């Protein structure tokens, strides 16, 4: 009997560790996923009549938006198996998985009795078999493109975690030749996908270097009216313009011939402008208070401090300066203290702009006859990352979510350098030309339109 008990005890003790191992879930670690674009199926939005076939139009705009980001591919509509006829039924997910659609966007357009459009959509995950988001919008019929952009933004945000940037506009300088052969530079505005372009300023004077206010209601730009560079604040809704400070004006001596130094950028609260002005010797960074109309000097250095840009929290300002010889990038507190250098490479660093995410600063670097577009950590840590190199690069501008950068790209043409606006994403992929007729430069990307 005792032997039997001993035997059982030994057996039991042996069984326990093995059993414990077997009962623990097996641990698996996966850290190398793919970064392929997400395949999404976008059938034409169901048209409930009287909408002038807007269903197909809307789905096409959404598809173009998502594809332009480089993060999505759309599945060819001809491959679709299920013909979604009822917006409110669960799709047959198997039919969508079979054609490799990870996500499915179904929507419908209805003309309401008041004449406006009701646009609704549901985004489905075909693998999880779940609705991820569903929203509807009401709008004037002529405003259907904006609704499409809003839907694309919602899809983008749901599937990437980032805010979208499709319901935004881009202001830029349209460059052309006047009737007497004179170069003309006018401000123009368009949707981020190139639709609805229109001019903001007339051809009688040059307009350059626009920058958006955080509310997207105002811009600053530099004009050369009567041969004198002046910074303007332009209210986009009312069309009202106001001159702030001019070269050769009250106490303001000289500025760069291209007006670069008078290019003013808004603080994130929209109440101040950061601008570089030459008062005595050399350019210095100033803050201009839009309410009190007062100018406060932030830097005092014999070298030129130019091109200021606020951090998204408004606590810091990045600028370029020749205080160490060649032009390099510096970050300081918004009161002018604690100046730290953040670029250390060879060449001239110019045109810094702080990312809306806050962690990066984009810049233009000029070295041995070549221009580069790059980013560097805003705290100066880590290596700089070059995204694009070319014949000429200038005036970078961030998308409101900090994922894409627009910039002026110059290439040798038949009649000298030709300028166009191009976009590239933060990873250095998806280099794309903005769909603008003629030459263009100086892009400014609006915040998301509320």
């Amino acid at each position, binding site marked *: 009997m005792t032997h039997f008990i001993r035997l059982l*005890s030994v057996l039991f003790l042996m069984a326990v560790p093995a059993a414990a191992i077997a009962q623990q879930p097996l641990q698996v670690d996966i850290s190398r996923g*793919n*970064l392929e674009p997400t395949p999404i199926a976008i059938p034409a939005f169901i048209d409930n009549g009287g909408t002038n076939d807007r269903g197909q139009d809307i789905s096409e705009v959404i598809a173009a938006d998502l594809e332009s980001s480089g993060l999505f591919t759309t599945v060819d509509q001809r491959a679709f198996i299920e013909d979604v006829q009822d917006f409110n039924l669960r799709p047959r997910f198997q039919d969508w998985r079979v054609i490799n659609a990870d996500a499915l966007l179904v929507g419908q357009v209805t003309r309401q009795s008041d004449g406006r459009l009701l646009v609704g959509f549901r985004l489905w995950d075909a693998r999880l078999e779940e609705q991820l988001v569903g929203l509807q919008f009401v709008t004037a019929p002529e405003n259907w493109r904006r609704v499409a952009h809003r839907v694309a933004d919602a899809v983008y945000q749901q599937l990437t975690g980032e805010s979208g940037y499709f319901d935004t506009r881009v202001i830029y300088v349209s460059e052309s030749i006047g009737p007497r052969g004179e170069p003309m530079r006018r401000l123009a505005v368009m949707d981020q996908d190139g639709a609805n372009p229109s001019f903001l300023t007339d051809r009688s004077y040059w307009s350059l270097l626009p920058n958006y206010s955080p509310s997207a209601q105002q811009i600053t730009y530099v004009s050369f009216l009567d041969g004198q560079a002046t910074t303007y604040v332009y209210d986009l809704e009312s069309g009202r313009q106001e001159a702030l400070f001019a070269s050769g004006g009250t106490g303001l001596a000289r500025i760069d011939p291209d007006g670069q130094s008078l290019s003013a950028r808004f603080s994130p609260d929209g109440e101040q402008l950061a601008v570089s002005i030459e008062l005595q010797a050399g350019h210095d960074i100033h803050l201009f208070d839009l309410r009190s109309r007062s100018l406060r000097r932030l830097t005092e250095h014999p070298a030129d401090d130019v091109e200021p840009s606020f951090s998204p929290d408004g606590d810091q300002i990045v600028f370029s300066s020749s205080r160490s010889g060649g032009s390099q990038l510096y970050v300081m507190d918004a009161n002018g203290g604690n100046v730290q250098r953040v670029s250390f490479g060879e060449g001239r660093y110019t045109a810094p702009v702080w990312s809306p995410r806050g962690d990066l600063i984009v810049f233009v670097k000029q070295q041995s006859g070549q221009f580069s577009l790059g980013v560097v950590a805003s705290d100066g840590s880590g290596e700089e990352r070059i995204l694009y190199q070319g014949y000429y690069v200038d005036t970078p501008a961030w998308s409101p979510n900090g994922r894409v950068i627009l910039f002026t790209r110059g290439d040798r043409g038949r009649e000298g350098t030709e300028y166009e606006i191009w976009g590239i994403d933060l990873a250095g992929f998806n280099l794309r030309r903005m769909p603008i007729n003629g030459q263009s430069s100086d892009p400014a990307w609006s915040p998301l339109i509320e």
Partner: protein
Amino acid sequence: MRTILVIFVSLLVHAGFIVAGLVYFPKNVRQFSTSQVVPLELITEIAEVTNTPEEEVEEEPVEEEAPPPEPDPEPEPEVDMSAAPETQAAPEPEPEPEPEFVPDPEPEAPAQQPSNPAPQQTQVPQEQSFDDMLRDLANSVDRERSSSSGSTQDASSSYEALGVTLADSIRSQAQPCFRSSADAPNPERLNVVVRVRLNRDGSLDGRPDILNRQAIDVSGDRYLRVARDRALAAVIECAPYRLPAEHFSIWRRIDVTFRSDG
């Protein structure tokens, strides 16, 4: 005194048999958990076939305060339709998620485990050497098990080695379906742990669970939410998994940690 001893021994023996049963007869245990899952699917089906009142979309959009002078009229503030429709195309009852769809049927490797009909995703030469390795390990474990002189220590270390090999196999099978969030800001924080329960044929036994779901929900971090969906979609999409049936007890439950900092 004698009664207490008998009760103690009885308890010990019972516990021993239960534990041994869990180790040696895992199939029975699995069947039990499978039968728990089936009603869940039925519940979904019942809900789908039921013609619930129209659907829960809020149909009363907020009216626009149409500002006439504005050149660019605003679209309405969106109305949340987050409630998924429960109505289902009534006429044809959908065949329930039969075999999982496998994206690209790659050329099959010589079938080493006839009990596993699933298409495999890894490359042939690697797979063969992997299978050899697996067989060796399995043999060694079996030897340990059957030999009365084999110590518990050795058995557990072989188990560990076998676990590592199985984990490698699962990783290589699930990885292709995982869309990384490495391009998000600070991707090192985007870890998601998925508890996967498998059937003996490598198919999913019920919907996998997110073990850190609560932390993800509380964080309100959109990137983390996306990482969660991507992790869940990966284990679902790449199923069924091709794994040796004789070691089912080891891979019956798997905790997969998805990282985006790789």
